[in-house]
């Protein structure tokens, strides 16, 4: 290729770079570097005028290489590649120097920052001289999307996709879709019934011709690449043939094993060994719990089979279940959250004092089909029945396991609002009941939320600003006898108080769902420090991930309320649809390739490739790389002992040039 003519464009990024790095000095320095024929600065290189400047310079000075020294390549590399292409210069004859995220923002001393900036620019200039033209390849995109998680976010995403005629595989590990929202009684701030608004969506999703619901199933592997993923789905053994089952429910009535703790009901009541988690379950197909079914355990019973007219019971299903591999173009992860288990916070008495409840337990208590048929009552001899005595006073304790460095540092965002909801529900269910709401800060950011708070203030709820220090059940003063005592500082008054109540509801915070980390590893996604999934950009790409073609929605990304989860579900769907409607995906050209005249077929590389992209051509005794399979990690290139493997865009020469550029005057 003709002698490099490099143009260097240094960005002030307003004051982000300019206030620390002496941009003119850097530009001047660049002018003096080998191969540099033009260097210029600009306030905002990514702005239209900025890009225009680059395009003009390319033409005017016949530049055949471009270096933009601005922000991180992860931010604007695509932007400037496009700029070059528009000026007729191949976008890969371009290199970015990261002066913002890795120089100006992290360096205190201005002189040091400017010096480092020069070094970074010099490295980029030396590197770009060795760049070669590259071209992205396009691959067809499989017109189907995998949605992992059948909560409200996943359902919304699935429905949006389906309505655009995209095939959807909706995978839910529980026997029914619906997720957390299906457990809720009312929803804040409108107080409309969760089931009433969710159930239709669940049914719609299940019956939609474009949606295949894989309930009681989990994604165990994902291979392939954007546009052409293969997902392996594990269907757990339910011992019920869903094709045959009519959902008549006869088996549910007749099963003699009645004392199985009902997880879905927060173990506040029992279920049978064959069960559906709740009445409106979708699909309405029971599953048999192999840990408790006497037929499966001891080979005795078989009643459900007897009563099943459809003959849908199959005790002989393989216990390990079945596996299915599906082709999809992209993936939406909507695996939701779990609520904090307050047992370790001994001071709050959960697990020790019967009438201390978690938020979800209380949610079920309020629910008409819950353990108390919707009555707010105390336990009788440790058991919850609708016949129990109503409390005279209830304490709502905010920030349990949230905003607490001993457990979770983050704010769970929804606890304030659902606590207000509970306050209202208690007043509604138990007229005259005192409600104490203990909060640190009342966080009501959302449409109609503050209004809801104001409404509750009028409903005579006793709001006390102070984190509950302790809940105990031993009296010191007569009025405390036989009741629970909440110890707290009323911080607005500045005095400590002992407040007797009959029931305590802990506003337990939100945590990443069970197995979130494992799934992240299966899908090669990252988690942030709080364990929730890491989005590509907190502001600009909130539902994308670092992995092309994998999107996130709902609480798996961070705690959210229902409207936000639904919005994200739709947003993720929009991105998935966009990709599928385009019909093709662009594959980065930065793959590994073989220099055949040097390759001796030693096969060091072959077992290193996690994607089986490398094979051996037996008669030519050479390694051969399948570009479509190669994801461009370069591990094989790093390993090749005779430098017979190279990676487009990251070959030895280019990286040597970068090293030398950094150390030029060492």
């Amino acid at each position, binding site marked *: 290729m003709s002698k490099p003519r490099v143009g260097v464009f240094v960005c002030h990024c307003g004051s982000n770079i300019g206030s620390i790095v002496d941009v003119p000095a850097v530009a001047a320095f660049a002018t003096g570097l080998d191969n540099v024929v033009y260097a210029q600065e600009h306030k905002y290189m990514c702005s239209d005028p900025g890009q225009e400047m680059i395009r003009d310079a390319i033409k005017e000075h016949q530049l055949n290489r471009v270096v933009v020294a601005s922000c991180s390549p992860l931010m604007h590399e695509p932007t400037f590649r496009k700029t070059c292409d528009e000026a007729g210069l191949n976008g890969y004859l371009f290199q970015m120097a990261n002066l913002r995220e890795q120089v100006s923002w992290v360096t205190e001393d201005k002189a040091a920052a400017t010096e480092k900036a020069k070094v970074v620019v010099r490295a980029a200039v030396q590197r770009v001289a060795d760049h070669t033209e590259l071209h992205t390849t396009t691959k067809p995109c499989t017109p189907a999307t995998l949605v992992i998680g059948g909560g409200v976010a996943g359902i919304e995403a699935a429905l949006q996709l389906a309505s655009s005629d995209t095939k959807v595989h909706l995978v839910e590990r529980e026997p029914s879709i619906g997720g957390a929202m299906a457990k809720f009684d009312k929803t804040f701030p409108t107080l409309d019934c969760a089931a009433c608004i969710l159930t239709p969506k669940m049914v719609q999703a299940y019956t939609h011709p474009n949606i295949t619901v894989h309930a009681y199933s989990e994604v165990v592997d994902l291979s392939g690449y954007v546009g052409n993923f293969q997902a392996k789905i594990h269907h757990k053994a339910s011992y019920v043939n869903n094709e045959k089952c009519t959902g008549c429910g006869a088996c549910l009535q007749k099963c003699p094993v009645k004392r199985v703790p009902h997880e879905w009901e927060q173990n506040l009541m029992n279920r049978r060994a064959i069960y559906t988690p709740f009445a409106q379950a979708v699909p309405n197909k029971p599953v048999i719990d192999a840990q408790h079914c006497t037929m499966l355990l001891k080979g005795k019973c078989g009643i459900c089979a007897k009563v099943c007219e459809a003959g849908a019971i199959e005790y002989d299903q393989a216990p390990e279940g079945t596996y299915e591999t599906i082709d999809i173009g992209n993936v939406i992860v909507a695996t939701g959250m779990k609520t904090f288990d307050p047992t370790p916070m*001994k*001071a709050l008495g959960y697990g*020790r004092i019967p009438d201390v409840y978690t938020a979800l337990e209380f949610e079920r208590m309020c629910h008409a089909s819950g353990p108390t048929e919707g009555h707010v009552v105390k336990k009788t001899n440790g058991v919850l029945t609708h016949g129990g005595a109503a409390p005279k006073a209830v304490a709502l304790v905010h920030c349990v396991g949230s905003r607490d460095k001993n457990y979770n540092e983050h704010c769970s965002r929804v606890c304030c609002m659902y606590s207000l909801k509970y306050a209202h529900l208690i007043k509604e269910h138990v007229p005259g009941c005192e409600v104490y709401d203990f909060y640190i800060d009342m966080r009501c950011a959302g449409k109609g939320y503050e209004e809801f708070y104001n409404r509750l203030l009028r409903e005579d709820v006793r709001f006390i600003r102070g984190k509950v220090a302790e809940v*105990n*059940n*031993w009296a*010191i003063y007569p009025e405390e006898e036989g009741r629970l005592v909440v110890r707290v500082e009323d911080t607005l008054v500045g005095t400590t108080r002992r407040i007797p109540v009959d029931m305590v509801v802990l506003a337990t915070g939100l945590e990443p769902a069970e197995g979130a980390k494992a799934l992240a590893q299966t899908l090669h996604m990252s988690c942030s420090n709080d364990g929730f999934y890491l989005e590509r950009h907190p502001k600009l790409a909130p539902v994308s991930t670092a992995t092309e073609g994998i999107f996130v929605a709902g609480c798996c990304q961070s705690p959210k309320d229902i409207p936000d989860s639904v919005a994200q579900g739709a947003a993720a769907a929009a991105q998935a649809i966009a990709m599928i409607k385009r019909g093709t995906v662009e594959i980065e050209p930065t793959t590994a390739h073989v220099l055949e005249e040097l390759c001796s077929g030693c096969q060091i590389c072959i077992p290193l490739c996690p994607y089986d992209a490398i094979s051996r051509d037996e008669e030519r005794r050479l390694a051969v790389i399948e570009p479509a399979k190669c994801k461009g990690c370069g591990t094989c290139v790093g390993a090749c002992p005779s430098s017979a493997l190279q990676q487009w865009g990251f070959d030895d020469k280019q990286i040597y040039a970068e090293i030398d550029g950094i150390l030029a005057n060492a």
Partner: protein
Amino acid sequence: MTSYAYYPGCSAKATGASYEESLMAVARVLGIELEEIDDWNCCGATAYFSVREKLAMAISARNLALAETQGKDIVAPCSACYLGLAKANKYLKEFPETREIVCGALKAAGLEYNGTVEVKHAVEIFVQEPMLSQVKAAVKHPLTGLRVAGYVGCQMVRPYGFDDAEYPVALDTITTALGATPVPYPMAARCCGGSQIMTNEEVALRMSKNVLLAAEKAGADCIITTCPLCHMNLDMFQAKVNAHFGTNFSIPVLYFTQLMGMAFEASGLGIEKNLVGPSAGLAAHM
């Protein structure tokens, strides 16, 4: 046989004498060697720590240094001493600047400490296996039917310590091992007023009262303690509590080692030195 560097603490040589006597008696039975640290000094205790932080660490560290020469872990029966020594030990490891000053001070006194010593509370050495089984085995006279409120107070479990900071179980474990019955005792880890007894007597007495009240409600025949200061507040000042609040508690307060001694039928437990006389329930076993 297990062997420790024994750190008595100041009270053990005076008001807490019977704690030391009973501890030694029990240790003899179980074949635990407690070799008193030669020329030990005050642990720094709460009062000292509160007004001379680094200095307290330094003089506390002198004991650690002495124990290190014995090449043994320290056992401290007094919760305040336990915390004083443990805190010094912890901060020396965690905070370089503290380490610098303290080690400098030790050097000035011709001593050095390399952080190899572990600090254990007397309770700790009995509740951990295999010793717990040996305790069970050593019981000659099971204290069947005796209802015991196990009181550990604060500094054995907070801010460090080996037992739960809110609802500790170690003493109940021992009580059960002796054949007696631990009563549910919510005040087990609440403050007795300890260090306040002289400066803010009224406050301290109120705290002691609550501790005693809960024991009475739980129908305890006796309270067992793990610290001379707690013992002083609950036993010696029980009369003062009664006088002050018009209550009439008469709950015997024993060192947990005295209770163990009873079950072992060991002698020289100094039980007679406790001011509050034995309750009916307790007398039945004496």
